[in-house]
């Protein structure tokens, strides 16, 4: 009897100890794994050179960053941005089976603003980095007008192709591709923006590889400024994005990509540079005004905002640090911070996600409202000029109103094209829009006095 009881106690101890040791071993292994992660392992499984364009090769050394990079295929809407996956039937000319929603259908006033320009034919919400090359290649804008090779500067990984075309000289290759047609240049590139466009393959340090920015930033910083030598690490975390997310134009017959920052980074300073050079993107089909198209000036607008003032770079919110196991990496899934509020905002702003989202959307809906008012004012001016034209007004009589249309339109488009709906610099966006409305008003006034 006693033996039997002893036997069961022994069994109970064995079981108890077994559970305990199993738990302890599991914990030990877990601690071991965390310690391994924390050692920040970097396994060089492939050799990266200044010629390695393919991000998949870089991804073998940096799988976590590559994993995030690949996720830029996601299409998620935010209230005022992001993109929606719209299915389409692929054709031979355009094999895309999914595109983003058309902005022209969302706001037909854009067609009036861009009448006579390629953007009035096809303009969709921007998608993630993964789509930059195919969306440019297959947009209907390509059929509307012959695009220059310059466009490839920001829609493909151009660092290696530029260097090859220039016989080792980046700038020479840049000049060469600028003068090709788009489809000639397209043949020389394979990937959308890739690791090598922002990283040094030996040290992984950030670097600027786009000639447009290397030259453009000198207008802001000084003639001898070498961005890769003189910029701080934190500056580089914005500059690598500013390589492309900027306003630009194609200068002269050689179509040299130029960032118009010679008088400053603000919308009206850029406009006054265009006024001085007399540059125009196209002649407006309805009014005949020599008009300008603004393009995604995120870098310029961010520069006017409180985040830039406080030293917060693009990467801080669009590629915030994220923890993978016990390892901290910057999130290479570049996207709207609204989709990643906890990592992007809560690191500095201790408020619930819902509150932060409301703050952002308050700024954006106010800007959106102002943008709508400015758009109505511009369309009213365009209609008035058209009416005066059909009534027989001469070019000399229309000239002042056309100049006001050019100004109003550029300032409005500056906010319209900017991908934050005012968030990057709310008051600056309001200031620019109020000037736009004022120019539309002055244009209508000019028509009255010309009569």
């Amino acid at each position, binding site marked *: 009897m006693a033996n039997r009881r002893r036997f069961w106690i022994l069994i109970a101890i064995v079981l108890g*100890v077994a559970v305990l040791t199993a738990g302890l071993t599991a914990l030990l292994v877990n601690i071991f794994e965390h310690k391994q992660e924390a050692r920040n392992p970097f396994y060089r499984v492939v050799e990266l050179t200044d010629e390695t364009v393919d991000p998949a090769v870089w991804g073998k050394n940096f799988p976590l960053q590559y994993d995030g990079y690949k996720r830029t295929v996601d299409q998620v809407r935010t209230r005022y941005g992001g993109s929606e996956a719209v299915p389409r039937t692929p054709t031979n000319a355009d094999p895309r089976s999914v595109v983003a929603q058309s902005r022209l259908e969302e706001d037909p006033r854009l067609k009036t603003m861009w009448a006579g320009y390629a953007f009035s034919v096809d303009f969709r919400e921007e998608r993630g980095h993964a789509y930059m090359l195919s969306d440019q290649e297959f947009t209907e804008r390509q059929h509307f007008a012959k695009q220059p090779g310059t466009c490839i500067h920001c829609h493909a990984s151009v660092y290696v192709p530029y260097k090859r075309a220039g016989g080792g000289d980046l700038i020479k290759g840049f000049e060469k591709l600028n003068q090709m047609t788009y489809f000639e240049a397209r043949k020389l590139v394979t990937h959308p923006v890739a690791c090598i466009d922002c990283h040094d393959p030996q040290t992984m340090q950030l670097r600027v590889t786009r000639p447009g920015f290397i030259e453009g930033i000198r207008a802001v910083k000084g003639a001898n400024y070498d961005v890769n030598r003189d910029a701080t690490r934190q500056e580089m975390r914005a500059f690598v994005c500013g390589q492309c997310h900027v306003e630009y134009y194609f200068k002269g017959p050689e179509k040299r990509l130029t960032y118009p920052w010679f008088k400053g980074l603000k919308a009206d300073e850029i406009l006054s540079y265009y006024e001085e050079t007399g540059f125009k993107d196209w002649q407006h089909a309805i009014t005949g005004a020599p008009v300008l198209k603004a393009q995604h000036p995120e870098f310029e607008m961010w520069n006017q905002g409180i985040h830039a003032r406080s030293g917060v770079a693009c990467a801080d919110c669009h590629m915030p640090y994220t*923890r993978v196991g016990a390892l901290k990496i910057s999130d290479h899934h570049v996207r709207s911070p609204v989709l990643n509020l906890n990592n992007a905002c809560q690191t500095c702003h201790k408020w619930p996600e819902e509150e932060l989202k409301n703050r952002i959307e308050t700024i954006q809906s106010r800007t959106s409202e102002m943008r709508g008012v400015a758009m109505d004012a511009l369309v009213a001016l365009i209609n008035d000029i058209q009416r005066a034209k059909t009534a027989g007004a001469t070019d000399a009589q229309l000239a002042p109103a056309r100049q006001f249309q050019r100004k109003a339109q550029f300032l409005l488009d500056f906010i319209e094209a900017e991908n934050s709906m005012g968030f990057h610099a709310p008051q600056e966006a309001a200031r620019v829009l109020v000037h736009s409305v004022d120019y539309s008003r002055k244009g209508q006034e000019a028509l009255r006095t010309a009569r």
Partner: protein
Amino acid sequence: MKSAFLITAAVLLGIAGGLGVFTFGYAKGASYLGHDPAACANCHVMQAHYDDWRHSSHRSVAGCNDCHTPPGLIPKYAVKAKNGFWHSFYFTTGRFHEPIQITPSNRAVTEKACRNCHASIVQAIDPIPAHRPSDALSCIRCHSTVGHMR
């Protein structure tokens, strides 16, 4: 028979005990009982807080324990045990909010620590503090970055 039973039981418990001691040592368990702020960054989740603290105005006058545990041996180790358990639990399971957030009870501990060291100036500002300091008069509402950035 009886001694065989005892030996078996002792061996089993010894194995479990040995494994436990090794795990404790391997996880630098003893460091959590001490006062060295580096221990708080053992698992790297608070690495940024630790790095910031080393650059902060408080680095030469107050370590992690001075602001994040209450004074007195028993309250101090009670708070250490509670936080130690939950930190290990959440770090092991990996399910926790990021960026990490302080709990209300730990916030109260820190608030008291501010008021304790800076008593002479706090008395002039808030002479009759509420039993639980309200958010409106919380020190870290304004001085949120004195110890470390958030």
